[in-house]
């Protein structure tokens, strides 16, 4: 199994390690729920070094990304970040990613670990038509610092004023790349550092009061925030239009990969949508549980679990577009239980948005 440079530090901190897409990663350091609360109320740190960093550079870097990505790379400013899907020609989602604009001719993409090989192959094949080149950046670690006290905790360790980095923008501190982004719904940054500097930074953050958090808490935090997980809430056999990611598509433009397929789908009519669910009564909603309403409309939970902040079972689900929220039920083992449809996200700024 592949290991990040922080592997030893995780073991010292008592992490329970698991295989995550070929990487040995911490799932928790004791209690996933405590880690979750630390991020909602204070500050937590995550090793996400397994994610893949790809730099794209050249006179046609922008033109290339304008074709590769379904969001509008031309609308972001210098140092700004953009969330986008990368689609195949059928409109299916190859991956979702964040792209930072480093300069007029250089961008940095951060893609999922589990999709690394196919992403690289796809990007490599696509870039040949452009005067641009790509380079995977491997000799680094990525540490996410997340929570209401994230910036204050990192601030003494850097020279620039973190509050001056706008949300969804990035800045350099020497060889440390700091993006004010995250996957928890809280304020915070994701820091890309050279491998040799990672362990010292990790330890300094712990000494400053940050709670090490595993992939378990990362998943419940992103679910509460209504953020999609690649491989569950989207994949190659569903388009952004069908799973609640229509907002990430650039409009009135059919030049990006997959755009024609999406136009045809719009024409024919999109048949499914993404909804947020809360279980009424006792139990836990899980990935792959099926949904049905009184009219026979169906659906499936794409991400579900226990939400530590709301203390409820919550889920995101892809359902038939006419699903009746009044008669919606979930099948859990041998029981059928009622669910309530709620707006996403479930949690914002550390507070539950679910009405009782």
């Amino acid at each position, binding site marked *: 199994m592949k290991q990040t440079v922080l592997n030893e530090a995780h073991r010292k901190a008592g992490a*329970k390690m698991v295989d995550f897409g070929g990487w040995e990663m911490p*799932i*928790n350091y004791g*209690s*996933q*729920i405590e880690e979750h609360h630390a991020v909602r109320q204070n500050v937590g740190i995550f090793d996400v070094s397994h994610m893949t960093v790809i730099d794209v550079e050249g006179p046609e870097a922008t033109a290339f990304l304008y074709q590769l990505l379904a969001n509008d790379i031309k609308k972001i400013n210098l140092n700004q970040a953009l969330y986008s899907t990368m689609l195949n020609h059928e409109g299916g989602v190859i991956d979702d990613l964040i792209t930072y604009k480093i300069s007029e001719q250089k961008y940095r993409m951060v893609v999922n670990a589990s999709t690394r090989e196919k992403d690289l192959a796809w990007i490599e094949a696509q870039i040949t038509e452009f005067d641009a080149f790509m380079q995977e950046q491997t000799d680094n670690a990525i540490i996410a610092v997340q929570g209401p006290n994230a910036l204050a905790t990192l601030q003494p360790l850097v020279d620039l004023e973190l509050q001056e980095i706008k949300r969804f923008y990035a800045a350099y501190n020497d060889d440390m790349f700091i993006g004010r982004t995250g996957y928890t719904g809280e304020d915070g940054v994701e820091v890309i550092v050279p491998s040799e500097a990672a362990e010292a930074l990790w330890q300094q953050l712990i000494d400053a009061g940050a709670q090490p958090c595993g992939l*378990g808490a990362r998943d*419940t935090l992103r679910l509460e925030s209504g953020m999609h997980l690649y491989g569950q809430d989207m994949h190659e056999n569903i388009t952004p239009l069908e799973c609640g990611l229509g907002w990430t598509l650039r409009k009135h433009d059919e030049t990006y990969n997959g755009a024609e397929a999406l136009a045809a789908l719009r024409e024919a009519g999109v048949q499914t949508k993404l909804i947020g669910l809360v279980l009424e009564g*006792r*139990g*836990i909603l*899980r990935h792959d549980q099926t949904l049905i309403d009184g009219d026979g409309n169906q659906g499936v939970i794409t991400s579900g*679990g*226990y939400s*530590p902040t709301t203390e409820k*079972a919550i889920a995101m689900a892809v359902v038939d577009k006419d699903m009746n929220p009044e008669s919606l039920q979930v099948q859990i*083992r041998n029981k059928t239980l009622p669910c309530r449809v709620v707006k996403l996200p479930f949690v914002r700024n550390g507070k539950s948005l679910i009405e009782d």
Partner: protein
Amino acid sequence: MSYVPDNLKYTASHEWLEDLGNGVYRVGITEFAQEQLGDIVFVELPEVGESYAQEDECGVVESVKTASDIYAPLVGTVTAANTALEDTPELINDSPFDDGWIFEIELDEDADIESLLSAEDYRNSIADEE
């Protein structure tokens, strides 16, 4: 190494049994099992009065990570269920052999008590997994 009390019997599916006398046994899941599951957030208890065959699914323990079935360790009838787990399922994490007990079962006469594991056998069975 997880704690495995000497005075209890065990199953390979990580239940423990405490002999309460008169053929009644108290059942829970082991410390090892709760460590593997992580934070427990929901327990579906067996119904009191319900009869089960050995290895029947009779309840569910769900953690933040996954759902795990609880099995009837031997043939018998459930006589009590720990309803405190409905509001405080984390008792299984905090006190797996005591406050986190799950149910009590009165064994049928033909229950195969010999099929249970001793503490030593159970320790050996989890040694490879730890």
